Structure formats: C-alpha cells, structure tokens
C-alpha cells in the first residue's frame, strides 16, 4: 500500500518538476530555502527554527536587506527522512531557485544530503544535525555547519564525566547513527582523559528505535546494569517520554550520574516544565541565558517579544545561519553561490552564541560551548541552567587532521 503511495507521490512530483522550468532569477530577492522537521514527534524543532528564521529575516529586511535585496524564505519539511530531505532540497534549488539552503535536524538526513550539494552547487548551512561526517569524511566545498557538532559536544560531556564519581558508563540513545556515534566519541574522549574508566560493551547498552514511546524496557536494562554513569543522547519527543518515564521508575534517584547531551533544548524544557528533574547535567548548542553580550540580549529580547517564549538552540541555529549568510553575501557583495561559498569559508562573525569562525579546512564552526545543571528558578517557566560550565571553541574542537576531511 505504502509503496503504491510513494510511487504516486513520486510521479506527481516528477511531473510537477519537469513542468515547472527552473526559475533562476538574476534580479529580485535573495531566496533562502529552509529544511527542518515540521511533522512527527520532532516537529517542535522545526517550529522553533522557523521562528528564529523569520525573526532574522525580518531584522535584515527592515535594515534594507542583503546588498539592497530583500530575503524571501521557502520552508520545507524533511520529516526527518533522508529521501524526503533530498527531494525537498532538489525542489528548493531547481524549482524555487534558492541561493542557499539552511537547516537539517537529523544526522541521517544531513549525511544523505551533504554529497548532493556538490551536484547542486548550492551552499548548505547546517544548523542542528551533528554528525561529524558532513564536516569530516564527507565534507565538501558547499557544505557548512554553523552549530556545534557531535565531537565538540562529546568533548564537553567527557570533560564533565571525568569529574564525576561514576566509574562505569553506559548509554541510552536513539538507534541510528547519531546515538551510536555519540557513544563512540564519548568513550573515546573520556578514555583519553581517564584511561581507567569502564564502559559497557555495545551489546549491553541501550539503543531505542526513534518511534519508541515506551522506554521502560531500556530504562530497566540500564538500571539493572552495573554502570553508575549514563550518557543519554535521546532528543526531542523521545527525550520527553524518556525523562517522564525514567523519573517514575526511580532512574533519577541519585544512585547514578546522568548526562543528557541535548537536555537543554527549550523544546524539551517547555514540554517537561517541572517534570524535568533538578541537578542533572544537560548539554545544548546554545543557551539563551548563556552570555550577556548585546547580540544575545537583543536576540533573546526580540524573540521573547515576538513569540512569548525563550529561543531554543534550534531557533538560534536558523537565526545564526541567516546572519552568517548575510555577512558572507555582503562581504562578497553578491549572492552568487560560488562567491558566497568563498566568503563563508573562514568567515568570522559575532552571533548571540558568541564569536563563531567557520574553519576553512572542514567548514565546521568553531564556537564556545556550554553545559549546565538543571535548576528551578521562579523567574522562568522552565528549568534553567545553574551552574553552567563554559568551554572554549579551541579546547572542544578536534584538529582538522582528526576529522578525516579532505576538501577538494
């Protein structure tokens, strides 16, 4: 049944894209395409990203646009699926004629899409997906990432874990490349710091399919293992269900150390509110109260005023990517794709998260990172981070030689 449907949809799409000739206007607005997860259990990430993008576009257009041209935005839903991601990116480039593509939440989608960008000759700025491959062994001239990647986040996780009491670590993560790679890099970096640290073999750790809504079996498995430290790389709806059920089952009873690698996503914090336990270390790509710079203050205030919620890291990612694109296009004095790619390479820009430099060798953003402990604060409707631990981009970013990137 499903097969028939996908064939029908594909045919309809083919007919449509052949019928509509590629519009490549030289004049007119700067067109930006956005690809996020807009449906399913991770759809809040797309919603926040869209809000962040709209805020940035509004600010830039109000200030006269990019090189005098206004920005026009096209939003597409990747549904978190690689095949859909490829399809909508082709549509954005061939049909809407976008000057750049921004977005991507899932590492699965990012890995599938990055190699296509060479063929589409269009810049892609990844704002969330964290797989090291797209700025590593699959890096290419057109693919950039403005957010922290998995290696950087796991370096921070390992640094925090090294100071904890736990002697043996295990993990609960999503059962796809992201969950497995998070565990792999965590183990690698923690061993570098503390060679005596123990890790459960892969057969004893827990990876749950992304469709899981009942995590009890995985929680039981980890609670009954001999590990006293748990790296949790679940995110989105999975993380919400997990935290809820784990709290009920006594997982956060203090007998084990817990690291939630993406726990400080406001999408998750808003859903859980006071159901998020206090005193748990959580990671993020950006934290809205992470610094007092004027850039951050103006972003958070404007976002809060417009949407009545605090921006998440995904909102920041989309906002940051547009600001970086604008900076590159005005440096190049053109939104020509090749010129923008040249200008993005090595670009340094101050964003709400802090100073961000796109490393020319692999196109990965070098930026400061932050982890924090969840705490209740009557001034906020959600858990906040107190205390926080800051890391510099230099200490958390592996050298280019380690990434496996060979830029053509």
């Amino acid at each position, binding site marked *: *049944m499903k097969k028939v*449907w996908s064939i029908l949809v594909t045919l309809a799409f083919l007919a449509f894209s052949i019928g509509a000739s590629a519009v490549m206007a030289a004049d007119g607005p700067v067109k930006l395409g956005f690809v996020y997860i*807009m*449906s*399913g*259990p991770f*759809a*809040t990430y*797309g*919603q926040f990203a869209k809000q962040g993008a709209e805020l940035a576009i509004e600010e830039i257009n109000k200030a006269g646009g990019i090189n005098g041209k206004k920005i026009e935005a096209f939003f597409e839903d990747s549904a978190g699926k690689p095949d859909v991601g490829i399809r909508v990116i082709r549509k954005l480039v061939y049909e809407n004629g976008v000057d750049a593509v921004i977005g991507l939440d899932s590492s699965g989608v990012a890995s599938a899409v990055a190699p296509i960008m060479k063929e589409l000759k269009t810049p892609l700025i990844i704002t969330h997906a964290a797989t090291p491959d797209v700025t590593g062994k699959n890096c290419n001239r057109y693919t950039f990432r403005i957010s922290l990647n998995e290696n950087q986040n796991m370096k921070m996780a390992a640094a925090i874990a090294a100071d904890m009491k736990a002697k043996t670590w295990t993990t609960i993560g999503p*059962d796809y490349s992201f969950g497995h790679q998070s565990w792999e890099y965590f183990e690698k970096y923690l061993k570098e710091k503390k060679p005596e640290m123990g890790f459960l073999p892969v*057969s004893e*750790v*827990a*990876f*749950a*399919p992304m*469709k*899981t*809504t*009942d995590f*009890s*079996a*995985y929680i*039981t*498995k980890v*609670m*009954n293992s001999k590990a006293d430290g748990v790296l949790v790389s679940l995110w989105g*709806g999975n993380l*919400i*269900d997990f935290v*809820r*059920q784990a709290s*009920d*089952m*006594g997982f956060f009873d203090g007998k084990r150390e817990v690291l939630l690698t993406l726990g400080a996503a406001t*999408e998750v914090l*808003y*859903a*859980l*509110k006071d*159901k998020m336990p206090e005193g748990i270390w959580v990671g993020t790509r950006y934290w809205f109260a992470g610094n007092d710079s004027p850039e951050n203050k103006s972003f958070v205030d404007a976002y809060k005023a417009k949407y009545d919620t605090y921006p998440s890291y995904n909102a920041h990612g989309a906002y940051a990517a547009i600001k970086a694109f604008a900076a590159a296009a005005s440096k190049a004095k053109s939104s020509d794709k090749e010129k923008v790619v040249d200008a993005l390479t090595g670009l340094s820009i101050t964003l709400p998260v802090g100073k961000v430099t796109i490393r020319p060798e692999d196109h990965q953003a070098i930026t400061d990172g932050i982890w924090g402990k969840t705490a209740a604060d009557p001034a906020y409707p959600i858990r906040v981070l107190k205390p926080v631990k800051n890391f510099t981009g230099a200490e958390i970013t592996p050298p280019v030689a380690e990434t496996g990137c060979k830029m053509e």
Partner: protein
Amino acid sequence: MEGFLINVLNGLSWGMLLFLISMGLTTVFGVMGVLNFAHGSLFMLGAYISMQLTRWISSFWLGLIFAPIIVAILAIIIERFLLRPVYGRDVSFQLLLTFGVMLFLDDGVRLIWGPAHHLVNPPDVLSGVFPIFDQTYPVYRLFLIAMGPAIGIILWAFFSYSRYGKIIRAAAMDREMAEIIGVRAPILFTAVFAFGAWLAGLGGALAAPHQSVGPAIGEHIIIESFIVVVIGGMGSFPGAFVGALILGLLGSFGATMAPNFQMALPYILLAIVLLTRPRGIFGEES
C-alpha cells in the same frame, strides 16, 4: 530476578495498551471487513482530547470517560458519511479512504494543538510508585496492566451473553444470513465502527499519562497493533489478547536480551505465524 519481574511488568503494561487498540482494530475488521488505517489517528485523538479535557476540567477520570465518547461520535460521522458510500465498491476504496482520514486527522491535530508535546498527569491516587525489591515501579503502569483484562472480560461477557453481542457475532460470521433474519446491518456497522473507535480513544486516553501527547503518538503503536491482529487471528478477541501479550513481552525482553534484533523481532514472529498458521494463532482455518 528483579530485572526479570520488572521486564514482565514493562511488557505487560505496553501489551495491555496494545490489546485495547488491537481489539478495536480486530472487531472492525472481523465484523465489517474494513481495515481501518485511521485507527492509530483515533488513538492519537483520544490522547489529545483527554489531555484537553483534563486541562479544562482538571479531572483525569472525566477525561477518560468523555474523550473516548467524543472519538466515537466522530467515528459515527466518518462511518455514516464517508465509509458507507464505498462499502459496495472495491476494497481498495476503503483502504484509500481510511488512509485519507488518517492524513486528515493527523494534520488536523497539528493545526489545533501545534507540534509541541504535552504532559498529562495521572490522578493523585495513581501517581505514586510501588516498591519492588530495591527499586520502585509506577502505580499508573500497574493500573494499565489491570485495565486490560478488566475491559477484556467486560467485552467478552458482552459478546458472549448479551443480545447485542450475539447479533454482532452473528453478523461477523455471516452478514447476509444475519440480514435475512432481520438484523439491520447499516446501524450495526455504524455501532461497530463507533465501538472500535471508542476502544482506540480509550487506549489514547489511558496512554496520555504514560507517555507524552505529541504528533505521531499513534504511529508506533498502530504498526504493532496490525501485527497483533494478524498474529492473533483477524477478528479474534482471545487472539488479540495473546498477540498483544506476546508483542509486549517481546518488546521488553527483546530490548534487554537481543538489542540488535529488537526491531526485527515482531516481524520475524509475524513471518513465522504466517508460514505456520496463516490465519493467526486463534484464526479459524476455512
């Protein structure tokens, strides 16, 4: 040992949710011959409506009672105005139609409630934990485990002893003969479809405090329910019960003992059953 017991409880609580969903699916299929793709969306709708009612009237119990009823009323509208016109046509029309209803409901829920996840608290009396060895187990899950057989027994008694139950069984066995002896099939069909939806809505309302209420909440459970229905035997109540138990336990023990195969386990079981008993464990061989 304690790990074993907790795994059994984990498997049972998921299995009982599966049982409720599968019962609705299997009844609608058994009596009407309709494979309802939108069943998972009705489950989702039950969860969302109970979440909304719990917010408005802050009573979990009223939400639990009224959400399935609202879902059933919606199902009556769907059956009366959408399904009924295509009964006489090829079965693919029914499949396409329920598939369309599914897409419509999924997007409708997203339009009304947005993409965010919502939490529903269990009522105070069920929100505690129960000590097991040196661990604790949520009382709400034990409640779920008890609800499955309770509802199952009520329905079994209804189908075995009440007049209406017998009529439905008779119609399921031979629709034409039932019509000849005076059963009004159209009303019966509406009632059965509404009943299936009521069960889906009830499952959703019961699932709400157990997981978060968000988009695609029904996606996973509906796939497993289809497997349960096929394994147990299309249209069979005991089959749905046994199938749901097996799948629930397979899920919890599979995650612990065979982590690399856990996603494949239900499908392997499905293949084995289809090869050895094509009509399911409790299906009657024709």
